[in-house]
């Protein structure tokens, strides 16, 4: 079925196997588990420090376990609005003063909100870490909400939404796709919130949300950089340990109701070419040890399809049959709530979205009926091993990985044995999960169509 591959002429199987063995030996010789220390303060706040002495800088990140997956109808977007308000002053700081102090010390600071977490980060010369910790401890408990500041900031967020979503038909498609695929799970809620909810949002909504979720026992401090871990822990204790914990009531689970057949939406928007998204309900990593086999098999399957220019989608769909001008997959095994394995792309000129969908289905069928080749599996494993080395080049990214895993309820240490877990995945595992999860009844499809007479 697949176009004949030339790859064996270049890189024979023997050579590939030799490469993989080399990679594995290299991996074992590496101090991959850079020194990382975790401790929990008496008030429940977690501190994770990873030392990296390559440059005299530090990435400091405070993570709160709160995001759009904790929200409900009527207050969607409140986690993100609150993130904006965290820069608008505390009992002892004027609005904007937080960032001014960081800037005066040569640092950069920002924040991010996502489904499972809200994070605040600084990058700064490592001898200035104390300033960050002092300021973060202050705003964990002492933010003041001023009406005038809130009114301006919520207007800014509405402009942000217009820029990020309302002016981008593909973003609108993704938003409505998720709201179609998920009916009862909060996965349907966009991080930035629905415009109607942003228009009706009141300051008290943000203030209540702050009171409910911002506490040391719902936070993790992640520090990566040119620091000594015991010194970081001493400083963290100095500033955070006096903060009182709250009673944090975990949100109701709101599991997604079983999907009972395919769902499909069509949008018409200001676009020149159509765009297609397909998503199958898939699990995420849970406390259940068995889940690791399925989610990592799906992870590897994603790389078989989309892990580079030699992967199947590039080979068969971008080149090969020239079905698409861009196409790819996406799957996140580490989210807190079960999600989707996505296929998305832009059809080539003269190709309809239906034909693109068929081409994706053809790739799925191939995975279900034939085991992936040894070479493909070796390629993916080589890429995983190499990327584990490459990603250590960025302290910020290392911190993000630790924080994301921790915020979703995972042990961050799993990133250190990720390579081993991936190496255990077999061709049979991949075929099994392809059959199990790419079930037509669990599919949601969204298509964006160009307007006929748009400007």
């Amino acid at each position, binding site marked *: 079925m697949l176009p004949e591959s030339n790859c064996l002429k270049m890189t024979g199987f023997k050579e590939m196997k030799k490469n993989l063995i080399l990679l594995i030996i290299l991996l074992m010789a590496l101090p991959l588990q850079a020194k990382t220390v975790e401790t929990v303060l008496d008030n429940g706040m977690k501190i994770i420090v990873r030392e990296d002495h390559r440059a005299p800088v530090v990435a400091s990140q405070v993570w709160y376990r709160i995001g759009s997956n904790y929200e409900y109808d009527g207050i969607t977007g409140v986690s993100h609005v609150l993130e904006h308000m965290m820069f608008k002053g505390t009992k002892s700081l004027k609005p904007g003063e937080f960032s001014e102090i960081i*800037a*005066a010390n*040569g640092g950069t600071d920002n924040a991010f909100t996502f489904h499972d977490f809200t994070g605040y980060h600084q990058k700064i010369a490592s001898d200035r870490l104390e300033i960050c910790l002092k300021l973060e401890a202050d705003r964990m408990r002492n933010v003041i909400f001023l009406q005038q500041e809130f009114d301006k900031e919520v207007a800014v967020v509405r402009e942000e939404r217009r820029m990020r979503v309302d*002016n981008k038909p593909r973003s609108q498609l993704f938003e409505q796709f998720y709201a179609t695929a998920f009916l009862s799970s909060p996965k349907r809620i966009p991080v930035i919130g629905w415009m109607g909810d942003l228009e009706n949002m009141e300051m008290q909504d943000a203030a209540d949300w702050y009171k409910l979720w911002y506490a040391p026992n719902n936070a993790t401090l992640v520090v990566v950089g040119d620091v000594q871990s015991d010194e970081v822990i001493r400083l963290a204790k100095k500033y955070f340990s006096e903060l009182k914990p709250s009673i944090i009531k975990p949100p109701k689970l709101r599991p997604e109701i079983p999907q009972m057949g395919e769902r499909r939406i069509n949008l018409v928007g200001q676009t020149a070419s159509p765009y297609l998204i397909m998503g199958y309900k898939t699990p995420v990593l849970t406390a259940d040890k068995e889940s690791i086999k399925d989610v990592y098999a799906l992870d590897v399957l994603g790389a078989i399809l989309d892990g580079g220019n030699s992967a199947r989608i590039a080979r068969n769909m971008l080149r090969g049959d020239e079905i698409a*001008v861009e196409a790819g997959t996406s799957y996140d095994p580490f989210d807190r709530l079960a999600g989707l394995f996505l296929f998305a792309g832009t059809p080539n000129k003269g190709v309809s979205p239906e034909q693109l969908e068929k081409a994706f289905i053809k790739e799925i069928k191939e995975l279900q009926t034939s085991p992936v080749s040894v070479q493909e599996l070796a390629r993916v494993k080589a*890429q995983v091993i190499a990327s584990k080395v490459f990603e250590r080049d960025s302290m910020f990214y290392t911190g993000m990985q630790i924080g994301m895993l921790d915020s979703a309820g995972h042990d961050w240490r799993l990133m250190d044995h990720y390579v081993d877990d991936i190496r255990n995945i077999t061709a049979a595992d991949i075929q099994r999960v392809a059959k199990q999860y790419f079930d037509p009844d669990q599919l949601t499809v969204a298509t964006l169509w160009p307007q006929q007479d748009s400007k």
Partner: protein
Amino acid sequence: MSIPMKRIVLSLLLLVISQTALALDIQSWDTANGVKVLFVESHDLPMIDVRLAFKAGSSRDGEKFGISSLVNGLLVEGSGAHTAENIANQFESVGAELGHDSLRDMAWVSLRSLSETTLWESVVDLFAQVAAQPSFPQDAIDRDRQAMLISLSNRKKEIGDVAEDAFYQNLYEGHAYEVGKHGTASTLQALSRQDLVKFHADYYVGSNATLAVVGDLTLAQAKRYAEQLTRYLKPGQPATPIPPALMAEHGKTVNIEFKTTQSHIMQGLPVLSRNDPDYYALYLGNHILGGSGFSSRLMQEIRENRGLSYSVYSYFVPMETSGPFQMALQTSNNQVEQAAQLLQQMLVDFIADGPKASEIEHAKKNITGGFPLKIDSNKKIVEYLSLIGFYDLALDYLDRFNANILAVTAEDIKDAFKRRVKPDQIIRVIVGEPS
């Protein structure tokens, strides 16, 4: 809560001192075929970053708009006897990452690989072939051309792209920077394989190239591999300098109708080259005006005080010649007039009055204190090396950066802005729906 002044001054001093120790040890030499090499040895991680840059960006397109980008993309679609498949397989089977892209000035090919000898050496020669010996298969040409045409038609429906394209068109009418790498539909359609072969033969040559290497190699190894990575490049000729762009005599506002609830405003002038003597004064001044995120004047007034836009900024894009000074924001259609006036007034005021002493002090602290963040990863270092080599900056450019910033005075900034940024010659693009 405020931090005592004394401490900041003290730690600033410490930082300046500690930075001398931080200096990058850049080694530089030329290969036999004339490629300028810049190398930094770093053994902390078992990996190597390579970036091979050519003066082969869209400013070299001539009348064949889009050719530079098409050529750059086709490098990985076939080389010598290797198919796209072969190339991708060979890099990816050892976990190496092959990259490529182009801008107005620069086009490049990059490689990130583990440094283990067998793995690394298995990709060195192929990298050299990819840069120097593209085979330009006709099916790949047609496929990539088609993808560019589709992406071009999508750009016309994306408001941010429409604003940016119109900005450059109006600032650089008739100049090499007018049309970016996306090209135009008619010129893309007219490109022949022969055109591509010629463009590559003219510009992807040793004397027009800079090779940046960072990572787990000794100097002796780097010298050997630099030859190997560039061995198939013909010496060729360096590209001719790009003539400067002239400022329009009179400013203007270009309105483009676009169905939307939020309009984009983008305005500016052609101003700055990489080697410009006003570089540091303009850089520091702009940091205060709109280049430093939340502490900048534009962000404070337009976002923080008035809630008019999520993002507002100004910056200079230093290029080989006359890179743009660019200011931009996005706001609801009914606030466009107010926001556009405010943006222009803030520029006029800044030029007339210059920055305050406290603003300069704050900006200097931010820039010099943040210096270590500029070079805290191999990726950032290899990009800087590439920039330094490409634009012929001094090898101690980074080492002297802080001293150059600290030497700028309020008078320098005021003077440089007065001479170089003329508010009545500003070109303004507004994309949106008049309310």
